């Protein structure tokens, strides 16, 4: 007991004799604690903004984009045509590395030449493009190219890169609660991804992504049992299209030229040749198109 008192008195004397600046400041300790916690939050939020999107977020952003497409151009009214394109597309998508996504295919009622994919697996093709195709293998080539974009997450990656700064600002400003529910990005975050996505659709992807989608698209068509030259045939058809006769095509204005795409695909001639004897499936394609008005 006596020793404890001696220690206390000595400590008090020691404390009293120290210059004020060296005295232990408890308020500073609190501030340090706060700063540490904030640092953790910032780091957590930064990682929220830059981590890869979950599949759920990808689908949500893609659905937002798809809803906008459908607001701009109506669905083609022919249900038989829609079902046909869905069956062909789903079979091609089954050959991809993401066979169990909710793949949906929509024919848009516009005479222009267009085909697009949005994140999450909704794919659009215009009736104008469909009418210029000659076989199911050509359709499989076009849809294969679009499936490839989703399989390789081309749009998702481009959207994330473009939205990164804005996402960080949004998350940092606590508009988005990084700790909440299923989508940590929240409604505002998804809205940002959707609008960024639409901007990217209007500008187009990098050439390398388009060339890769052609290569993988042809491979997917071949895996689905089709003649992979279907995609080559479509590119040749597009190469011969006179723009002033076909109207403005968002697709064609955002892709590399068909001639360049053909030159790139030519590198893989030996693979294409190996499967060139697979069916083109012209009859049932012609039947479906013939019953259109």
């Amino acid at each position, binding site marked *: 007991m006596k020793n404890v008192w001696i220690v206390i008195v000595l400590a008090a004397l020691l404390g009293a004799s120290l210059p004020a600046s060296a005295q232990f400041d408890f308020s500073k300790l609190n501030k340090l604690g706060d700063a540490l916690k904030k640092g953790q939050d910032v780091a957590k939020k930064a990682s929220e903004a830059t981590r890869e999107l979950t599949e759920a977020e990808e689908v949500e952003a893609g659905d937002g984009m798809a809803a906008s497409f459908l607001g701009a151009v109506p669905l083609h009214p022919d249900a038989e045509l829609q079902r046909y394109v869905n*069956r062909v597309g789903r079979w091609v998508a089954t050959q991809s590395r993401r066979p169990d996504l909710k793949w949906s295919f929509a024919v848009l009622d516009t005479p222009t030449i267009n085909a697009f994919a949005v994140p999450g697996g909704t794919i659009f093709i215009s009736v104008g493009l469909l009418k210029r195709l000659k076989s199911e293998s050509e359709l499989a080539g076009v849809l294969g190219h679009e499936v490839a974009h989703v399989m390789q997450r081309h749009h998702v990656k481009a959207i994330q890169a473009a939205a990164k700064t804005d996402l960080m600002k949004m998350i940092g400003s606590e508009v988005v609660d990084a700790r909440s529910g299923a989508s940590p990005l929240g409604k505002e975050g998804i809205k940002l991804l959707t609008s960024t996505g639409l901007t990217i659709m209007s500008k187009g992807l990098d050439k390398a992504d388009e060339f890769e989608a052609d290569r993988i698209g042809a491979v997917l068509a071949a895996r689905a049992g089709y003649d992979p030259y279907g995609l080559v045939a479509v590119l040749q058809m597009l190469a011969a299209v006179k723009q002033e006769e076909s109207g403005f095509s968002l697709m064609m204005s955002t892709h590399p030229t068909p001639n360049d795409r053909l030159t790139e695909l030519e590198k893989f*001639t030996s693979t294409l040749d190996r499967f060139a004897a697979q069916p083109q499936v012209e009859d049932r394609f012609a039947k479906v198109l013939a019953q259109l008005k």
Partner: protein
Amino acid sequence: MPFKPHLNRFVLAAYWLALAVFSAAVVAQEVVNTNRATDMRAAPDDSSAVVRMLAPQTQVQVLERRGAWTRVKGVEPEAPSGWVRMMHLRGEVIIEQAAPQRGSGVMGGLNRLFGGSQQTAAPRAQSATLGIRGLSPEELQAASPNPQALAKVRGLAASKDEAATFAKTANLAAATVEDPAEAATNKPGARR
């Protein structure tokens, strides 16, 4: 030409109708160019007889496609048809029409139809003149989302099984195909 001006109107009308239909069919043909010296063959097969040797930049009309081959016909009236490797063809390069048209009116039109090897190519025009706007960046950004249409799209989707069955009915069989780019770098999982 065995055409007598005083032939009855019905035959005359039929003649011009046939011409119009024929010209529409010709105009709808794709015109492509060889991008290298290549062979036009009798059948879509490297071992079949060479019908004609084609110089680079030879203009041809596309008639049919089969596997890796395209059946084409030269643009001159008596040109033969035959098979050319699809990869040896490209879209025509757009050139401005510098030379004057050969003749005008009906005869000039007929000349262009049957003999025209010159392509009149307008520079890539804005669609505004045609009025086919379709989907533009502005329209896309300004569009009000249509979630009901999206729900309809979901309803029209095919299941995996449905799609597989549909493929079977056309005798489509899934094939094992390596992605040539992945195979080249020996990445694992190159088959899927």
